[in-house]
């Protein structure tokens, strides 16, 4: 994997088909975790909290400065039909430098904060542990959106 790669959990694919997410109207967040765990597509029932098999929030970075517990919200979530593809997109993430910011963010966990079980959608590979106290931190989603669904070729 490389920095910026986004991987969606296998469980999320099931959750979508079971209508457990309303990506356009739910609050979707990006929680930051340390290298204590290495998420993968096959991570069992991943959540940002208890209730599933894997509680990723237990590895959250230490909140502080401009990073609040739970992480920033992905603002203005949109689901659109764009050139024959269903696209889930949202505002980019930006956390300004602060001396009290977390110093060891390794993965970004995309999860549904509206969902009672806070089911996770996927994760972003930050490439290495990032010190947010040393400078501004930003994640720009892909120009094509966070996720697309299209007909199989």
């Amino acid at each position: 994997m490389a920095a910026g790669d986004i991987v969606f959990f296998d469980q999320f694919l099931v959750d979508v088909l079971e209508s457990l997410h309303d990506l356009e109207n739910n609050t979707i967040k990006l929680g930051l975790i340390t290298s204590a765990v290495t998420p993968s597509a096959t991570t069992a029932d991943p959540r940002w909290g208890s209730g599933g098999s894997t509680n990723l929030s237990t590895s959250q970075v230490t909140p502080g400065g401009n990073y609040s517990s739970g992480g920033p919200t992905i603002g203005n979530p949109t689901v659109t039909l764009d050139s024959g593809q269903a696209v889930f997109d949202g505002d980019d993430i930006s956390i300004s430098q602060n001396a009290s910011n977390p110093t060891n963010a390794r993965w970004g966990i995309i999860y549904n904060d509206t969902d009672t079980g806070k089911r996770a959608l996927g994760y972003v590979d930050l490439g290495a542990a990032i010190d947010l106290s040393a400078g501004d931190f930003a994640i720009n989603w892909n120009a094509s959106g966070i996720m697309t669904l299209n007909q199989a070729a």
Partner: protein
Amino acid sequence: MPHTAVINPSRDQQMVRSISRIKRLRLSIERASTTGNEEKLASLQAELDRRMEGVTAFKAELDSL
């Protein structure tokens, strides 16, 4: 299908992203207009305006070169 995000993007990368996002924001604004969701409409419009300002400023800089 998943895509690759950009960590700490350059300004050029931000512009590429903004141009695509602007297209989808317009589509979403069109939809929100038909459903009468005023709160969402205002939020989407504010993001669109912010993106447009960024692209316009970038273009002005290019034009001045």
